């Protein structure tokens, strides 16, 4: 009888310990206390993750093949005539062409804004939680990446660095609910705040003044206000406008320019010129 009661007590204590530990970890991590310790654990794991991703890239391209089935079948016929060594070489060349195309796009993008300092980084993983949207990069603190730095692909802005370890960093995508980016519209020049809607929801621009006639198809760019993002980084296009005359502000739904699921290489913008807000600090 007593043994049974003791076992029951131990069972409850153990359960309370597990739940208590999880809650304690959540609190400590939210306050940033665990950053150093977790970095030590994350670094070797991200190194392995990077190695795994490199090998998965080829496999993923093979799996994506059926989209061009006819071309792929013809290519397979041609490849069958070649020996194994040539096949391997061919696959490597295809991979390199694909990568060089991405790099060429990135360099074109870099050439548009040579005043920014950037670091190129490979995407080596995605968020392990299905509800959250982030990507893992193979560059971290040692390469000069810091929390808050903007991250862009050749098509446009990807998000912002959220966590950094010595050799890896985690980027919160601009579609995440925690994301808030000051933006400007291309044609009307209206400004607002782009907020992520989370998984399955497109980001929206809040606080757009009603005096502007926002149109579907307008380009959305960073405004540079606040100094956290450089000016004129492309974000996407307006696909819907929610305008109610009874309200003070209107909203616009934005389709991001970047296909986040296919991003392989990105730029981390390490230095950029911020908008000159010095005039506001001067006394009249």
């Amino acid at each position: 009888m007593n043994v049974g009661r003791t076992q029951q007590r131990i069972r409850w204590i153990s359960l309370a310990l597990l739940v208590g530990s999880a809650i304690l970890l959540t609190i400590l991590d939210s306050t940033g206390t665990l950053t150093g310790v977790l970095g030590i654990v994350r670094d070797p794991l991200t190194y392995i993750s990077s190695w795994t991703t490199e090998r998965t890239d080829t496999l993923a391209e093979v799996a994506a093949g059926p989209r061009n089935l006819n071309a792929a079948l013809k290519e397979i016929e041609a490849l069958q005539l070649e020996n194994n060594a040539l096949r391997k070489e061919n696959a490597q060349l295809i991979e390199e062409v694909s990568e060089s195309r991405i790099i060429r796009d990135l360099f074109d993008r870099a050439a548009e804004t040579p005043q920014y300092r950037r670091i190129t980084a490979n995407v080596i993983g995605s968020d392990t939680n299905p509800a959250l949207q982030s990507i893992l990069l193979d560059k971290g603190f040692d390469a000069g990446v810091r929390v808050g730095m903007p991250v862009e692909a050749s098509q446009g802005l990807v998000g912002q660095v959220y966590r950094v370890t010595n050799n890896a960093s985690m980027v919160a995508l601009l579609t995440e609910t925690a994301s808030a980016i000051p933006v400007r519209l291309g044609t009307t020049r209206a400004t607002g705040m782009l907020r992520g809607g989370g998984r399955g929801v497109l980001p929206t621009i809040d606080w757009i003044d009603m005096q502007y006639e926002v149109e579907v198809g307008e380009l959305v760019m960073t405004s540079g206000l606040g100094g956290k993002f450089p000016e004129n980084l492309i974000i996407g296009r307006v696909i819907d406008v929610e305008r109610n005359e009874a309200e003070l502000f209107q909203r616009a739904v934005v389709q991001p320019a970047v296909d986040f699921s296919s991003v392989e290489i990105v730029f981390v913008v390490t230095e950029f010129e911020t908008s000159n807000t010095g005039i506001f600090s001067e006394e009249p």
Partner: protein
Amino acid sequence: MESSGNGHIYIAIPVMALLAIVQSSILPRFPIAGVAPQLLFIVALGWGLLRGLEEGLIWAFIAGLFVDLFSLAPMGVSSLAFMAGMTPILLRRVLPPRRLLVASLMGALGTIIYLLAYTLLLQFTAFGVTISGMLELLPLILIHAVIITPVYLLLDYLLRITKPRRVEF
């Protein structure tokens, strides 16, 4: 906690570390119905079904920690959600003794509870999940209900080979 002494609980650490890498770097490239299955959760649930709630909770706790290493979510949130997802194991005794059918049912039920707990817990962090976001994750219930069967059979086979002693609180 009564330790088994043979360290089978500690196997969870390298197993979950390996699965977390697979979850982060490989599975997102091969999504099913737009979502990647939560492999760590399924393995923890499968282990719990075979070895009891106590061990399931420990595996879920460890799995959650590794998931959060590769996630925006604060450390510990996934552990709590995964442990909540283990609760259907309690129903095992009242269900018919058809192991695979029960495993499949547990996979679906556990996923529903895990997703609900996770959504609730995320509201306390900077990241929220909307209703439409949740709806996008619904295929996970079906995917997990299917995937748990081979995972369960594999774990069962491994357990029969290694014959680890049971751990109880």
